[in-house]
């Protein structure tokens, strides 16, 4: 609870600071607020507090809060000079991101389906605005509208699902629903099944899993890159945590029922994400499709429910978040200099910018899942997870997809190191350097010694 209050208060303080034109103070205030929130995460560890049956701050919630807050903190560090050219009132951006984060913390800690809905809406509404925050930019407006329509649509599915499940069980409480499932295992109301499927569709929309992914590339491409990095890392992680809380715990007794449709979703997501990413000429769009494919790998944790499913998602999400932050950070720098996010604008980058080329290489290796990076540990855990139920065919399919992944992730490495290009020197602000180097250190550290994060939940 402290975490939510801290972030919300920070958001308000930032808004007031903006009112008094204290532009220089915005970032420090935000960072202090987020660090305090992280401190509360650490303090509340292992306390497992429940707030009025609505929210449960167990280690699952705390771990995912921690990773999302840390990710947001890194993204805030990348805001240096980023919004200044768009608008005078950058306090709004800060506040909206912080509000979205409040929603996210609620999403990862709900114990009652109404809180899931509230958290999701707090997050989504902030994001609708953030996507369209470049008022005069056509693509940004399009992204915002598309995101809003699709988001509203999927929220409809989710709500309808919640309603049907309430109709069947008479409760919003996750434990009560679980008790209903265990108690009436032989006579579960058909309403419950329909509700479950509708919720699965609604949440699949939110995490961008195929065939509900059509909004992802357009919205990601149209939004400002920094907002996209927030959406595809922090928001996605939160979506998975919400998915997991519901399906891995509450709906676990019905695993045999919802696993087959989920399997279809996983296979489609992997295939569509990877194959489409392969044909992209634009780095940003490639990242958007690759984020779809990562959703597929993340769902592996639900195909086979094991004791470590939640922790596996955490590791994978952490690996994916830090690698993506590097990729987006570098993309922003490159785009500022070259004005394009085409693969060609990375040509020959390594000659004049060895550090940038190195960090981006590590990020790509991690996303592709090469050993000694965090991404490998994440993929390994996911493979291990499904192998425990001997889903050999799924693993073989995933391997084929991983191979496709190698190909497109290496495209940017190829461009940077092996192709000739204009020898430009990028301007890397100090804060960017801090974020990029820290993210690389985390990525390599988790790849070499993941023991620190393996038993958190």
């Amino acid at each position: 609870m402290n975490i939510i209050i801290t972030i919300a208060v920070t958001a308000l303080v930032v808004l007031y600071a903006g009112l008094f034109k204290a532009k220089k103070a915005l970032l420090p205030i935000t960072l202090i607020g987020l660090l305090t929130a992280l401190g509360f995460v650490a303090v509340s560890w292992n306390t497992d507090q429940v707030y009025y049956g609505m929210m449960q701050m167990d280690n699952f919630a705390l771990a995912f809060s921690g990773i999302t807050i840390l990710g947001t903190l890194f993204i805030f560090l990348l805001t240096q000079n980023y919004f200044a050219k768009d608008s005078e009132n950058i306090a709004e951006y800060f506040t909206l991101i912080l509000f979205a984060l409040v929603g996210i913390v609620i999403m990862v800690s709900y114990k009652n389906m109404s809180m899931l809905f509230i958290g999701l809406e707090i997050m989504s509404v902030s994001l609708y605005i953030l996507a369209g925050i470049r008022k005069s930019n056509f693509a940004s407006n399009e992204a915002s509208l598309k995101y809003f329509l699709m988001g509203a649509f999927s929220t409809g599915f989710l709500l309808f699902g919640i309603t049907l499940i309430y109709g069947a069980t008479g409760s919003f409480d996750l434990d009560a629903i679980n008790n209903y499932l265990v108690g009436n295992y032989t006579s579960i109301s058909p309403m419950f099944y329909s509700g479950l499927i509708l919720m699965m569709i609604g949440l699949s929309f939110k995490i961008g899993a195929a065939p509900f992914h059509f909004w992802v590339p357009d919205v990601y491409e149209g939004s400002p890159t920094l907002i996209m990095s927030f959406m595809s890392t922090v928001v996605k992680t939160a979506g998975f945590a919400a998915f997991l809380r519901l399906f891995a715990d509450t709906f676990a007794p019905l695993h045999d029922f919802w696993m087959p449709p989920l399997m279809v979703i996983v296979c489609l997501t992997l295939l569509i994400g990877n194959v489409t990413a392969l044909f992209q000429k634009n780095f940003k769009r490639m990242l958007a499709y690759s984020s779809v494919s990562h959703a597929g790998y993340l769902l592996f944790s639900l195909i086979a429910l094991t004791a470590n499913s939640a922790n596996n998602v955490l590791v994978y999400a952490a690996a994916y978040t830090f690698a993506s932050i590097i990729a987006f950070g570098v993309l922003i720098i490159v785009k500022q200099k070259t004005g394009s996010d085409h693969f060609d604008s990375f040509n020959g980058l390594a000659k004049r910018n060895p550090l940038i080329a190195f960090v981006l290489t590590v990020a790509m290796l991690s996303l592709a899942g090469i050993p000694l990076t965090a991404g490998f540990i994440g993929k390994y855990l996911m493979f291990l997870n499904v192998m425990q139920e001997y889903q050999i065919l799924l693993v073989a399919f995933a391997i084929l997809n991983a191979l496709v992944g190698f190909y497109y992730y290496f495209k940017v490495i190829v461009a940077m190191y092996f192709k000739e290009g204009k020898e430009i020197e990028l301007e890397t602000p100090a804060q960017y350097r801090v974020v990029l180097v820290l993210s690389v250190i985390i990525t390599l550290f988790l790849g070499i010694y993941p023991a620190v994060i393996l038993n958190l939940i």
Partner: protein
Amino acid sequence: MEQLLLLLIFLPLVGALVTTFSGTAAKHVALFSSIVSLALTIAVVCNFTPDASTQFVVNYPWIQDLGISFHAGIDGISIITVILTNVLIPLIILTGYKHEYKNGNALFALILFMQSGLLIVFTALDAFLFYIGWEAALIPIYFICAVWGGKDRIKVNMKFFVYTIAGSLFMLVGIIYLYLQNPAHNFDIQAFYNLNLDGAQQGWVFWAFFIAFAIKMPVFPFHTWQPSTYTEAPAVGTMLLSGIMLKMGIYGVIRWLLPIAPAGLQQWGYIVIILSVIGIIYASLIAFTQKDAKRLVAYSSIAHVGLISAGIFALNTQGMQGAMIQMLSHGINVVGLFFVLDIISSRLKTNRISELGGIAKQAPILAITALIIVLGTVALPGTNGFIGEFLLLMGVYQYNIWIAAFAGLTIIFGAVYMLRMYQNVMLGKTNDLTIGFADIAGTEKVVLYTICALIIALGVYPKPILQLSEASVQHLIEQVTQKLTSVN
């Protein structure tokens, strides 16, 4: 003693770091590091007792929750590959001395980084560690070939990379499968050996591992990446790939595949042997028609590896011992051959056989050393190649006389295309291109003299090397036969 192995594995890594930041002195630093590694290897060999036990064992918990430990050691089989790696790396670094590489320090650092990965592969006693080393050796060679290679390098190396990584992902699935079957839930090699898998399970494990190893070696029909990768790679890359890296596949078969899935071998081994023999004949025939000397050597390498693989899968002491010594000999010879071709191409900018000729008159020392290397490659008695191929053929002969007859063609074919290449390149009339050919000097002499000395020394007196591995090889074969009888 334990520290010795840790030092052996991690010293190149430190060397790589120092090399990265040592500017123009990079090649000297790299050479120094590799020579220290060689000295350490000599210390290891001197302290090694040639019995079947695993020595210099280090075992530290690494990722305990996943049952992964840093468990490594050296036995009679791995010591051969360790010697191979640490003898060849200084030579390979020396061959790079005369080239002016852009970002040379990155190149030399990558070579040392790869050395670390290779040593992990050759000493790992934990399957996960083995896999990490397997990939850690791949990334540097990818960059070496793709940054410093020829004009087609990007496409060719992507093919190479995707090919190899596809194989290793199947191996990863195999490893996970064994891990799940292992009641202790760890990756310990001994626990994997002791698993009681039935015939069908071993069959699956066999293929999961075999594809990875077959791509690396490469065994026909998994070889299609190899000729163009060798041709496009820079000379040091070709030497690393052919001299050391393909031995990862052979070593993997001996260390992991045979003892874990002998029943798979029993079911499918004949197919592998037939594939190997097809590979021998096929690669030899294609080698005949090559116009580019580098490509010719690349195909000859497929033929030689085919014989090694047939010898291993024949599963007897002679074949296995032959494979051990032939791994070493082939590594030395092929590095020598590629270096000779590199010397020619860096002076004349071509490796096309038809454009060359008469170099011997201009560069007699090069011609003589090259002749010794070629004779080693075609297995003339008294050279190192003879010992290995003789033992290998003996091994295959015990398995099946007809297969041995076909496999024996490799020696005849090899002699024909190799000597013909030598004749066309070195002998004959000096033409306009080769008229000003300068003889070898400096580091070139050091490398080629060392290689020639090794070829003759191993050919005349191979006993010390054979002794090193003999006990371990016999132990391995007993282990496999025992396991086979218990499955049946």
